[in-house]
């Protein structure tokens, strides 16, 4: 046990030490969290009326962010599969970072659910044993189940792996591999169940399409890795952490397939709506062309499409995929494309027009932005802290004291 205490102390030391840029970044995150706390206090006092949500659009920006972040978390599987199923070494060296990103994304996703709840003090009512979860009928209970399972799995995997590496020991394959393999279907099911949450509602024709879950997975496999590619380059600079170009290019290549699928599925859906042109077309029309003078979402829809198409072309051509400038531009564009699509293009058209045909035009209030900023602050802080501990362990500069002078293990990911 003393080993664990020593490890925790070491972790705290790692997190507290850092250069000026690191401290500035941490200060910035704390300011963001502060803004979030102030905004949330306002919301908790006034009620959700402080947001622009109303009965007609009863889920909006928070739930859009939640959906996007579940996608980011699910995307870790794009690294886990090549690393553990195909034993591809360049990715195996960085897979743990993907898992750390998944943990942070899940923390943010769960927080977005919490800030969206009218009575967060009653969260236990959904818990198994303690509350009365409406399981298996309610999709939200499934969502809570898979999201928490995935979070727990990733936490156990990452902590176990890092602790073992810190001790200079190899992980036990018999424990580690089954959990890794389990994390693959769980990861896919997180985003699938989130899609089913919307998909299962006959009252909302815009969501009630069986293509929704595949579209979610395809877009997740674009947006999550886009975040990772940028982070890998930053970490490579900041920590002298050897992340091979091949790993990044392989991820970019996988992304180009995912983006093709994403755009194809979008096209399939648009065709179905516009060609058949039933009353269901209204929702799609509201997003892409507006209804009458109600055109709030139109600019988001086309901006999102433009981002996605340009990014797809940049990722498709090997020369631009392997050029870090165009690769990074592509990553930012794909991130923006999916974020806008999930944030404004998925939830709000689902509610507009309302079930009784009324149009309420929603845009987030400043308070909603503040709360969202706070949640992102907490998520980035979580990721920063995890990375600050993980990377020194992975590169071998942070080791158990009794091991530090012994055989220095090779840098990088331990291979049994």
């Amino acid at each position: 046990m003393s080993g664990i205490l020593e490890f925790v102390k070491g972790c705290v030391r790692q997190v507290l030490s850092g250069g000026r840029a690191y401290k500035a970044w941490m200060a910035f995150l704390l300011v963001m969290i502060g803004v979030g706390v102030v905004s949330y206090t306002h919301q908790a006092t006034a009620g959700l009326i402080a947001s622009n949500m109303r009965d007609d659009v009863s889920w909006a920006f928070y739930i859009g962010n939640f959906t996007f972040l579940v996608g980011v978390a699910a995307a870790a599987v794009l690294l886990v599969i090549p690393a553990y199923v195909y034993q591809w070494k360049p990715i195996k060296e960085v897979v743990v970072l993907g898992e750390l990103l998944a943990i942070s994304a899940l923390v943010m996703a769960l927080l977005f659910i919490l800030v969206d709840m009218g009575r967060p003090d009653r969260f236990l009512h959904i818990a198994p044993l303690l509350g009365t979860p409406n399981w298996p009928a309610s999709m939200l209970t499934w969502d809570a189940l898979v999201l928490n399972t995935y979070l727990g799995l990733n936490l156990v995997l990452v902590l176990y792996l890092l602790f073992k590496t810190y001790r200079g020991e190899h992980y036990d394959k018999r424990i580690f591999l089954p959990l890794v393999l389990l994390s693959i279907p769980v990861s896919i099911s997180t985003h699938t169940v989130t899609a089913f949450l919307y998909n299962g509602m006959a009252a909302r024709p815009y969501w009630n399409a069986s293509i929704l879950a595949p579209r979610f997975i395809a877009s997740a496999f674009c947006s999550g890795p886009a975040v990772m590619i940028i982070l890998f380059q930053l970490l490579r600079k900041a920590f002298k952490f050897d992340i091979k170009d091949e790993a990044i290019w392989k991820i970019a290549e996988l992304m180009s397939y995912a983006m093709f699928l994403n755009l194809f599925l979008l096209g399939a859906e648009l065709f179905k709506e516009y060609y058949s042109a039933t009353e269901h077309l209204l929702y799609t029309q509201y997003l892409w062309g507006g209804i009458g003078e109600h055109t709030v979402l139109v600019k988001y829809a086309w901006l999102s499409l433009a981002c996605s198409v340009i990014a797809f072309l940049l990722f498709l051509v090997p020369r631009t995929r392997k050029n870090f400038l165009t690769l990074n531009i592509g990553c930012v564009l794909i991130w923006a494309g999916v974020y806008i699509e999930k944030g404004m293009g998925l939830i709000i058209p689902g509610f507009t027009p309302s079930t009784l045909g009324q149009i309420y035009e929603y845009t987030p209030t400043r308070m909603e932005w503040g709360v969202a900023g706070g949640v992102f602050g907490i998520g980035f802080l979580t990721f920063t802290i995890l990375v600050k501990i993980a990377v020194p362990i992975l590169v071998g500069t942070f080791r158990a004291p009794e091991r530090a002078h012994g055989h220095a293990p090779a840098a990088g990911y331990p291979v049994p």
Partner: protein
Amino acid sequence: MTPNKSLPVVTDADAPPASPRDGVDPIGDGPLDPARRAFLRTAAAGTAVAALASCSSGVDMEDFLRKHFKELSPDELKKVLAKVEKRNQERFGKKTTVSAKGPQPGVEYGYGLDISRCVGCRRCVYACVKENNQSRTEPQIHWIQVLEMDKEHGVDLAHADLYYEADAVPRPGKFYFPVQCQQCRNPPCVKACPTQATWKEQDGIVVIDYDWCIGCRCCMSACPYGARHFNWATPNLPAEELNPDQHYLGNRPRPKGVVEKCTFCIQRVREGRYTACVEVCPVGARKFGNLLDPESEIRKVMETKRVFVFKEELATHPQFYYFYAT
């Protein structure tokens, strides 16, 4: 309006039972017995409450640890009802009675709405607000919503106006289509609720336990009739307008952050009365009664008129029927 001969009238002979909530199936089909669940909840809640209570001043320990409505024993339910009455007294300075009267055997409520008669006066909307203690202003909550539609388009939501303003109704070329909870037999809201805070009672009324609702609004997304309404802020309800005759699952004042809905005036109909909207309708467009009673007004409507249900393609099977009497 004729006396409600079709409605079940509760007389003394029907004898108030020992339990304040008779005629209900014993609940407890979960794998965990309520006592054990309550114990677990108490144990786990200790830490959670300490953290939450400090940041959310509105949290009451007793409320927090309360069981699901269906798990309450008769004694516990009595205490809970007394607490609601006490809270009403404190908040509104008014004595109220809060009942938890259960469904009566042999009763399944049905509602009929005559489209050819409705003139769109919205008296029902405001009678409902008054009867059911809805929030009056900022925000205004209406359980009944009246849509103005064009005769040339028929029942077409794309051409429906909920917020019509008219000096006189009905307006030429228009007809009116009131919508409220359709008390579906296959309610999507009940399916979607993650905490079983909403359910369908044996007499067909879909209810919400406001003290169990977590405010996730899944039910609102799932409802095809826009019949569920969220308390975005603390309801604005003037003390002098409070209706003191309340039902725990119906018109008792709601807290902020939970969902509410039409309950067919549960506090009235279970006492054998008509709903407020039926009573107030100046043209007699609204009919209400026991679907299981062959002599009831609603059964007569269904047998003799052209009846349809709203959004039948969604297979929600409403207990609310629209019809054309003329």
